[in-house]
């Protein structure tokens, strides 16, 4: 090997080494922040965790209390959003995968759905404010649910569409050749095959909306007391966290951290559960 090519060889080796070290550092850098955030949330939340959090209502500044009304409110608003969003989302996903799969209309809807998936959630909150809150005259849990349903919808549409397209076409053909009408094939054969995937989508959508704050700010309102009436303003965990964290009162800040802890655990657990369902199903198919 000549001296020149030896030098070039060494230069290329060094460059490679440098790039690989930098990439490992980038991975460390990225993980560092995420681990830090997780650590702070867990440790700060733990230290403010007590039983009162789940048994008492949101307190006035400086007093003891919990977030029972916010937890039940969030659960009710979130579940209602899923109840509204799931049928529409599954139906829309079915339309995409089974009726307009390769057509222009299908491409357009998929395109728009992906945009809705990443659209700023606060804008959807304003949209629901104009279309639901203003006609009703006041904020309500129902309006909050509609706003969250708009966020859950694209997630469910997308997973349903993807999961239905993964079902082998031989299954469709076999069922159709028996003379079964298409709606029955879809409901009784395809949905059954795609069920784990669709469930994953719904769980991921639920995880996504349980932390959403911005769309609830002007739609669900706030309520210091417990209510189960969806037509009334209702407290929710994210909006209460927002108010309490921004406040100068220490007991409110503490409650916000405790709520952050619960929210993070809940979202992570849902995410893990969703992936586990998908993974187990994949393994059993293989």
């Amino acid at each position: 090997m000549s001296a020149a090519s030896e030098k070039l060889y060494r230069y290329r080796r060094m460059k490679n080494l440098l790039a690989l070290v930098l990439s490992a550092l980038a991975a460390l850098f990225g993980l560092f922040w995420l681990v830090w955030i997780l650590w702070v949330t867990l440790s700060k939340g733990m230290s403010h965790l007590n039983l009162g959090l789940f048994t008492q209502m949101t307190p006035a500044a400086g007093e003891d209390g919990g977030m029972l009304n916010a937890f039940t409110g969030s659960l009710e608003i979130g579940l209602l959003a899923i109840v509204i969003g799931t049928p529409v989302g599954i139906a829309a996903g079915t339309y995409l995968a089974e009726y307009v799969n390769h057509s222009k209309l299908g491409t357009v809807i998929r395109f728009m759905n992906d945009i809705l998936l990443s659209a700023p959630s606060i804008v959807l909150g304003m949209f629901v404010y104009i279309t639901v809150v203003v006609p009703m005259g006041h904020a309500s849990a129902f309006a909050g649910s509609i706003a969250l349903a708009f966020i859950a919808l694209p997630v469910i549409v997308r997973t349903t569409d993807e999961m239905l397209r993964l079902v082998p076409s031989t299954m469709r053909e076999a069922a159709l050749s028996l003379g079964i009408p298409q709606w029955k094939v879809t409901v009784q054969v395809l949905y059954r095959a795609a069920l784990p995937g669709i469930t994953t989508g719904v769980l991921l959508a639920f995880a996504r909306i349980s932390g959403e704050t911005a769309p609830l700010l002007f739609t669900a309102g706030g309520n210091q007391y417990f209510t189960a009436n969806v037509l009334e303003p209702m407290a929710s965990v994210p909006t209460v966290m927002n108010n309490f964290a921004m406040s100068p009162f220490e007991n409110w800040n503490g409650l916000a951290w405790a709520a952050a802890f619960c929210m993070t655990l809940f979202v992570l657990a849902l995410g893990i559960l969703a992936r586990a369902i998908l993974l187990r199903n994949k393994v059993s198919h293989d």
Partner: protein
Amino acid sequence: MTSEAATLPASSTRETTDNRIDAIFRGGVAVAGLSVLAALAGAALSMLWGGREAFETFGWKFFTTADWDVGARNFGALVPIFGTLVTALIAMIIAVPVSFGIALFLTEVAPTRLRAPLAAAIELLAGIPSIIYGMWGLFILAPYLGEHVYPWINDNLGQLPVVGPLFQGPPLGIGMLTAGLVLAIMVIPFISSVMREVFLTVPSRLKESAYALGATTWEVVWDIVLPYTRSAVIGGIFLGLGRALGETMAVTFVIGNAYQLSAGLLEPGTSIAATIANEFGEAVDPLHRSALLALGFVLFVITLIVLAAAKFLLLRLQRQEGK
């Protein structure tokens, strides 16, 4: 004969019922499919309609004046628009190289056993609600930066020629740079997981050919993987940009919410989403409310353009794959 005559009409009524249900089913799912389009169009139009008063009152001056005064009923959107663009730009400057490094690490460098779990962990962390990032930014990151990092930046980088004014400012901790940093941390999982996915689509025969010719890992990534996935990588970056532009809670907590136009990145500012989050609930003046809706419309249009561009670029790789 009699039995056949009896079953024929029965089976044909069954056929008509089936056909009818099929038509209803098809109609139902079509309505649901089109509702996605309706949601997007409805959101855009309702905000344009709600913001018309502000657009009519201020015209183009809405975008060019920096004066946002609720009391004087004077609304210029320059400061929030500027804040949104600057914080998103800072986020991209930090997040793009880091995400590329992470994607490279997860596809080529890390031990094979670690790749899948690490990727799953990063995707899981992408699901942490933005309000948690905001609280962490306000209570932990901002005080730290204000005490230890920003004074140093102000003293050292602030004296540099040309770029100096960018780094001058009071060490408050909260401000545009902090907001940009928090946004960067938020979008890193998004961008890196898109990049990782598209890197995995590169046919291994292409990479193996290059390795066989004696290329180093870096040369394979830079000369084979990146050119093959270029449009999708840019698409992933745009996807992250779309998120950064529209992010509300994390920014609202740390940007400082001040209506001032300043080149200094350490100064507090505001963004479109933060302005809406802070003021829309309390806006009683119709013109104020209209101005906020107009802001929402502007944000919607900006993110729409960015996300549409991202989708186009990502689709390009899929088409190339399909061929």
